[in-house]
């Protein structure tokens, strides 16, 4: 069994975006859930757009499995220096009744399909301008990276 490199020392992409275990390793994503109507937004918003002002939005741990809603592969490096090619899209988290933006990971050159099951992974963001940052993504389930 191989041990994964530790991600505990990385700076989180956003404060309060990640849930960590006792060793500081990321284990989940923290969204916001409206106490009034149950709507889930990620990252958490300050208030629910559907409910009475002042209705609290509580921390909510997103499920770690979803399906691809939309996907694209980018063929030129980003302004921040993400090396091409790389992929991202939106992942439908059926259990949470929400959909989130996410990098998509899988074997090189393999296209991502709408409806395909994916699972949450964590990694150091590969972009020169924001070195040492903890990011998240979703990997195809037949080959989690």
């Amino acid at each position, binding site marked *: 069994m191989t041990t994964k490199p530790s991600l505990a020392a990385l700076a989180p992409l956003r404060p309060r975006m990640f849930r960590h275990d006792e060793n500081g390793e990321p284990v989940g994503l923290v969204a916001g859930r409206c106490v009034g109507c149950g709507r889930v937004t990620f990252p958490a918003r300050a208030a629910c757009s559907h409910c009475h002002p002042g209705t609290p939005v509580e921390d909510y741990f997103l499920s770690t499995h979803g399906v691809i809603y939309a996907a694209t592969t980018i063929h030129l*490096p980003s302004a921040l220096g993400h090396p091409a090619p790389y992929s*991202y899209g939106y992942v439908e988290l059926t259990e949470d009744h929400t959909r989130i*933006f996410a990098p998509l990971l899988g074997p090189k050159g393999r296209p991502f399909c709408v409806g395909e099951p994916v699972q949450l992974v964590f990694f150091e963001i590969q972009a020169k301008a924001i070195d040492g940052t903890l990011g998240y993504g979703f990997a195809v389930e037949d080959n989690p990276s």
Partner: protein
Amino acid sequence: MTHLAPNNPFIAGVGMTAFGKHKNRSLIDLGVEAVQDAIEDAGVIPREIQAAYCGSAMAALVQKETGVGQSVLMQLGIGRIPVVNVENACATGATALHLAWRDVAWGIHDVVLAFGVDKAVMPKGTVLEAGTAQFEAQLGDIFPGTFALIANRHMTTYGTTLEQMAQVSVKNHDNGALNPKAQFNKPVTLDEVLSSPMIADPLTLFSCCPNSDGAAAAIVCSREWMKARAAEGIEIAASVLASGDYEPQRDMTYWESELYCARSAYAAAGISPRDVDLVEVHDAFTISEIVHCETLGFCARGEGGAFVANGETALTGSIPINPSGGLLARGHPPGASGLAQIYEIVQQLRGNAGNRQIGWAEIGLAQIMGGNKGNDAQACAVHILRKAPT
């Protein structure tokens, strides 16, 4: 909220520079040219201008220049009046126009200048850094990618094809070839669009608009001011600006903000999509124009690809879209594009559009949008212009 103006303002005059690469000209210089052009076109004396809105989406970021509006107007000897600098991503120019419309519609001023300017051409090998502080961008999101995802959903849901999307670029380059102010004056073939380098799958290089340098301007005036000068003019029959709904699970094959703007604008103008003679839309990427055809009501949801491929949106089609060449061929300085759309519609309504004149036209619609957040555009604007007696 009302979108009904107590008094519909008029467009007294418009101006614009050529769009493209203006390596040896400053931002201020471009702004001056467009404003001077509009002042001459309107026949307005500079001291009659009572307020001004200047749009620039990139100046603070790229040129490190702030207060662009005041700097341009100082060159033209226009001081003292309130000048507000506006930033609303790609909808910046349309936002400046909307603010001028408000001032005149509610009787605060009689003559207001709206202009927009940007120099967005980047040195070879560098990319615009707009919006890179957003978490999505830090995870790799770039503008073409956002639209690629919409294309992905549109293809999956409705069977829209690569060829249908590429046809938007072919048609807009054909129109751009007839527009002396357009950045690209050369037609492209379907094959050239499809085989150009892949940017964000399925969008290729020629499926994406360029970053451009340029400026555009419009002078908005009251009916009374217009009446003293002409028996007929171009009325702003509707001006609607909205932000997104940011619903995480909304159908991504359209923008809710655009649907809202379209419905509100048609209602304010008292018209339906069938009454519109020509349209300028935000074709930053080919898929966008297909979605706009649907959302603005020119064809049914899901049928935009076939609608474009059948030639309905060509200069000779049932509803010409982007006769100017659109963002894809005219070019896209984000601060100016919304006003360049107005420039084109005014030329068409006046019958002054030269080789790309669509024939007799009474009503034109301009749609533009900017930014992307939480599954919707951050800003969307729809303007309806109509020939009307003063």
